[in-house]
């Protein structure tokens, strides 16, 4: 009998390749920027002898500006990809996007209102803006969840439709705000809508990292229950999974990851949708392999996108969401065309 073409081959080399690429991308991101730092100088941080050694200015650029930004890009990419995979597992649909919960739209609307209307005068905007945005995302997600509660159960179809409606309302709100905004505010709103890590510093990292790590680890711990859920909600229940509680916890974690990421860097499109897709082609749908691989690929892609965003047209900076959408959109269409005949695309 010929070998079955649909048999899955469990290969490990992509993990190794991803880790290697990740290390290279991190080094490249740390070295590139307005102040060029050579590789030996970077290595000198790890005790390697370098001549001439890292001067004070370079040290500040490296440790206080680039490193926090690189770390945040890695965490955001991993969190967005894992949140996307988790969301797709919960609704049992590989086309779901965490944005469907209304988090990104709500967070962006709150941020736009804050920027344009100048609410909360006298408060330091550097930290108030992320807080306002986080609150906006959480409120929107809460509203979507409340509205999709039918007979005490979260109805997935209603959830998706409510999220869609809320997205439309929020987008309209942002459009209205842009209409009354002055030039400066308009620019700030645009940057927010398309995402940017330009504000990412040590303060943002120290607030964001614990939240993102918590979401990442907690989602990954639900891998086996998520696998059972793919069989169907009743089937998962019969396998001993408390489906309602699983859905609530997962949605809370996805909201935490997405709201944190929008609060820190604005809305970054497509990472949550495209990364789990790409990864499923290689790992299959088993969340125990899917989620760790999503972390690696999500982190790599967002770091590459951010490095490109800040270096391509330096000193000007591209919104990172523009890059992820420009790359992600065609890639997604390509995947659909190639694998569209297989409903599960994995």
């Amino acid at each position, binding site marked *: 009998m010929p070998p079955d073409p649909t048999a*899955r081959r469990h290969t490990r080399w992509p993990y190794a390749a991803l880790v290697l690429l990740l290390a290279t991308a991190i080094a490249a991101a740390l070295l590139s920027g307005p102040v060029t730092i050579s590789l030996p100088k970077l290595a000198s941080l790890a005790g390697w002898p370098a001549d001439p050694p890292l001067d004070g200015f370079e040290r500040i650029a490296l440790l206080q500006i680039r490193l926090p930004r690189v770390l945040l890009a890695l965490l955001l990419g991993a969190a967005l990809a894992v949140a996307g995979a988790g969301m797709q597992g919960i609704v049992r649909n590989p086309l779901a996007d965490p944005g469907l919960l209304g988090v990104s739209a709500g967070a962006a609307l709150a941020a736009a209102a804050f920027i344009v209307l100048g609410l909360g005068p006298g408060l330091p905007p550097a930290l108030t803006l992320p807080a306002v945005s986080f609150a906006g995302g959480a409120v929107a997600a809460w509203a979507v969840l409340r509205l999709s509660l039918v007979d005490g159960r979260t109805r997935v179809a209603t959830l998706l439709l409510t999220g869609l409606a809320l997205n439309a309302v929020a987008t309209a709100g942002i459009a209205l705000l842009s209409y009354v905004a002055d030039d400066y505010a308009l620019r700030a709103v645009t940057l927010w809508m398309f995402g940017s890590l330009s504000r990412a510093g040590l303060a943002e990292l120290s607030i964001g990292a614990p939240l993102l790590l918590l979401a990442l680890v907690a989602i990954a711990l639900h891998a086996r229950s998520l696998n059972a859920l793919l069989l*169907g909600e009743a*089937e998962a229940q019969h396998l001993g999974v408390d489906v309602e509680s699983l859905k609530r916890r997962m949605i809370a974690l996805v909201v935490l990851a997405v709201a944190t990421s929008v609060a820190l860097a604005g809305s970054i499109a497509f990472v949550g949708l495209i990364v789990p897709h790409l990864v499923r082609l290689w790992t299959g749908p088993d969340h125990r392999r899917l989620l760790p691989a999503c972390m690696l690929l999500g982190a790599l892609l967002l770091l590459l996108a951010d490095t490109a965003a800040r270096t391509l047209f330096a000193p000007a900076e591209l919104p990172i969401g523009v890059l992820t959408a420009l790359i992600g959109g065609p890639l997604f269409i390509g995947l659909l065309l190639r694998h569209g005949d297989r409903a599960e695309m994995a």
Partner: protein
Amino acid sequence: MSLKACGLSHAAGGRALLRDVSLHVHSGEVHAVLGPNGAGKSTLLRLLSGELRAQAGTVECAGRALHAWSPRELARLRAVLPQRDQLGFGFTAAEVVHLGRLPCPDLPPEQERAIIDAALERTGAGHLRERRYTSLSGGERARVQLARVLAQIWNPVDLGPRTLLLDEPTASLDLAHQHRCLRIAREFAAQGVAVVVVLHDPNLAMSYADTATLLCCGETIAQGTPQAVLSPERLSRIYGVEVELLRATGASRPYIAVRP
């Protein structure tokens, strides 16, 4: 008593789907549920499985009310095969069966593997082991799903007698696999499992079930041995077709035939 349901009633959208249905299945018994489309067979099975909470009546599994069990414990002694399969992700057949092992305490990998392989072999799906579920035909999927629920309650547990609920397991199976499926039900019953199986074919019920319930319009029409329940007069009345009993020479039981 492995499975005991008393006075189950359920309504949805102002329409009564099930009225005062009771059911007792002992461990070691195969109980068939029959009835025309829309008679409430699936509703009954969903109430028995706890997927729906009955508006009136009680369900006990292994001597304890359904909701008194923790979901995990219940899953260790009772497996449910729903009618409709919703899996749209590309697990391999072996991975699907492995999902059935979720509530079971972890065994060494080679033992888990042996159970998965044995369950697939048992349902005639051994050759599908590494095939992607989404590439399988309807009948092949049904056999993989059956293997999954068998793997879930493969070994006896100390919590009580095991129960197996099957909702139209033969619906998409060919002739040979229909009989194979019910033979498996009998073999599990012989190990002390209480089996409830929703069927459409009265002849399968006559051949394999110990007891049967005939439902129509949400009510119990008859309950007892399949021979007593599935009388030609009753079937003619309920289904609105002409039914007669054929007796082949040497056969142990009559065959129910529908006049075209």
